[in-house]
């Protein structure tokens, strides 16, 4: 089969849909948090913790829905702690984010060893058993009409609208753009940032849960840099949700290349693993050196209200 025929086969298309969801949700979490002025580079860790919470809850209760809820709760909690450290206690957001990543890497291993006596992966979960079947149509349906996919699309429509159109979210945007001015107008900047960081954390963790649902288990370090690519997407999109979704699909296509060239040998495989990161770096460099007036971060990112 030729390269393009494989790339556009039903299985690969389904794969692209499934792999772009963690990117979309991770980037959405990052954008929402940073639009409130809180630096968030802990998306990788949030995704790992979300995936773990999802798998543990599903194995304990047997319901994938409880798994998704657990991931949301875990992400909200970690996001809240991050928000509190950064917005209230004024710890450098970079440090707190790095600590989330380190904590997630170690913490998920501790949990795996304690709960399942394994250092690498959890037992497998059944997940959502919708549209079972082995042909292309079923695999596409399974990917598109999947709860996490539907949820991600709904959130992608809802969150930007809520952030742009509601009075309550005005506080979040004000805290992110002009924290000092917002405070002088009576906006509770730390509170707005806590809310944004909490919801953002939940979104990113949901991305990890969708990854775990996709792989039908939790593996140690299974995000494999997707959280960091999500941060790259946040910046490339210029902190814009819809553009972030487009970039997510681009990175999902790059991921799919690895499957298309699976039989081409180890060296090609290694090179393809590098590909998304090279593309991310190159496009970041290009966007910075090339364009003039785009990609400005929220003006209050990393600044405080006093």
């Amino acid at each position, binding site marked *: 089969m030729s390269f393009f025929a494989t790339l556009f086969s039903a299985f690969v298309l389904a794969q692209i849909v499934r792999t772009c969801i963690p990117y979309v949700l991770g980037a959405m979490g990052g954008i929402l948090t940073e639009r409130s002025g809180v*630096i968030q*580079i802990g998306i990788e860790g949030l995704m790992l913790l979300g995936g773990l919470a999802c798998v543990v809850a599903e194995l304990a209760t047997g319901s994938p829905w409880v798994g998704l809820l657990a991931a949301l709760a875990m992400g909200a909690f970690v996001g809240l702690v991050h928000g509190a*450290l950064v917005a209230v*206690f*004024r*710890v*450098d*957001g*970079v*440090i*707190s984010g*790095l*600590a*989330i*990543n*380190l*904590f997630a*890497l*170690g*913490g998920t*291993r*501790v949990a795996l*060893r*304690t709960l399942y006596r394994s250092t690498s992966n959890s037992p497998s979960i059944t997940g959502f058993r919708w549209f079972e079947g082995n042909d292309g149509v079923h695999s596409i349906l399974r990917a598109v009409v999947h709860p996490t996919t539907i949820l991600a699309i709904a959130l992608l429509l809802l969150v930007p609208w809520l952030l742009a159109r509601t009075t309550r979210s005005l506080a979040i945007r004000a805290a992110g753009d002009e924290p000092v001015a917002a405070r002088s107008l009576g906006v509770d900047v730390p509170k707005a940032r806590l809310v944004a960081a909490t919801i953002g954390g939940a979104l990113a963790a949901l991305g990890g849960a969708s990854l775990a649902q996709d792989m039908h288990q939790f593996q140690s370090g299974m995000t*494999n*840099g997707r959280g*960091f*690519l999500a*941060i*790259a997407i946040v*910046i490339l999109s210029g902190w814009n949700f819809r553009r972030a979704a487009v970039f997510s699909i681009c990175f999902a296509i790059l991921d799919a290349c690895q499957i298309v060239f699976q039989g081409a040998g*180890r*060296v090609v495989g*290694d*090179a393809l*693993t*590098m590909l998304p*990161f*090279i593309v*991310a*770096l190159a496009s*970041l*460099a290009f966007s*910075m*050196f090339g364009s003039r007036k785009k*990609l*400005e*971060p929220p003006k209050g*990112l*990393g*600044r405080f209200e006093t």
Partner: protein
Amino acid sequence: MSRPYAFCFCLLVSWLALDLFALAYGHAPFEVVAAFAQGTWGTTYGIGQILFKATPLLLTGLAVRVALRAGLFNVGAEGQLAVASIAVGAVGVVLPQNPFSWILLVVVAALSGALFAAVPAILSRRAGGGLSLLATILMNRLADPLVALLLHAGLAETDSSHTRPMRATLPRLDVIIPSLHGSAVSVALPFAIAVAFAVDAFLRRSRIAREWMFVRENRVASAKVGISVDRRLAQAMLVSGALAGLVGLATVAGYKGYYEQGLGAGAGFAGIGVALLGGESAVGLIVAALLFGTLSQGGLAINALLPREILQLFEAGIIVFVALLTGESWSIIGKIRWRKS
């Protein structure tokens, strides 16, 4: 809170946390703490292993510190040390065993580390701290497949996952101090300490380091008084990468004698903790490196009782704690716009 107090506070909280973890896993706290102490500072072998583990941590801590001096966050020490390690492994195969080769290995390690830091360095020139931070993270993720690719493409010995044994290796310290016999600490440790004091002096006395600080504090004003901001930022990142690259001497040339994937991994992230806890002085960084080395060795000592990854949680906790207690904040993101205005 000043740094020594923060250090003591961290020790106290770590000890309490270890006790709590011991209780949670159904062991007597004393049993776990005793095993920890026995495996770390209790034997000469344990001390040697701590010194061995502290060597990369000291170097990566220095690397993070140097970058922070210019307001840049080098989270990429992990990738820089991996690439430098494989370079040291590859070059060490063809060099004969003599002191001249050792100097050449130092040069190779520093250059390859700096080379891998070149991308963030270039990005920091135009785009500022936030983007170079992300670039160092992405370069980390790039390093793993790159190293695997190099190994698969011919650097690895046939039918194995490591490079060919080196002829030029660094002597172990047990040549001088026989009681350290068996532990992997090599002359890379005194070398790293010398580097720490040299960097300390450089940060205190050189014009470049002073200008790094000006750039960190106010990029626009620095440009106005004639400092070439772009060049200083790129220099800081390159020096930082070179220091991280020196880790390859301790792990590859000083210990294994060949490179295998994952050798030295983790030191880059722990180095951030070392830099935060240690502050800017050489002595502070050495003490912090010893603490993190103790944690890492202690993890192995208690592994039979508790999962050793618990100590990784301690590293994350210490990083946040120190940042919380000392109230320091350097990152360039909050202070300076991304592009020069």
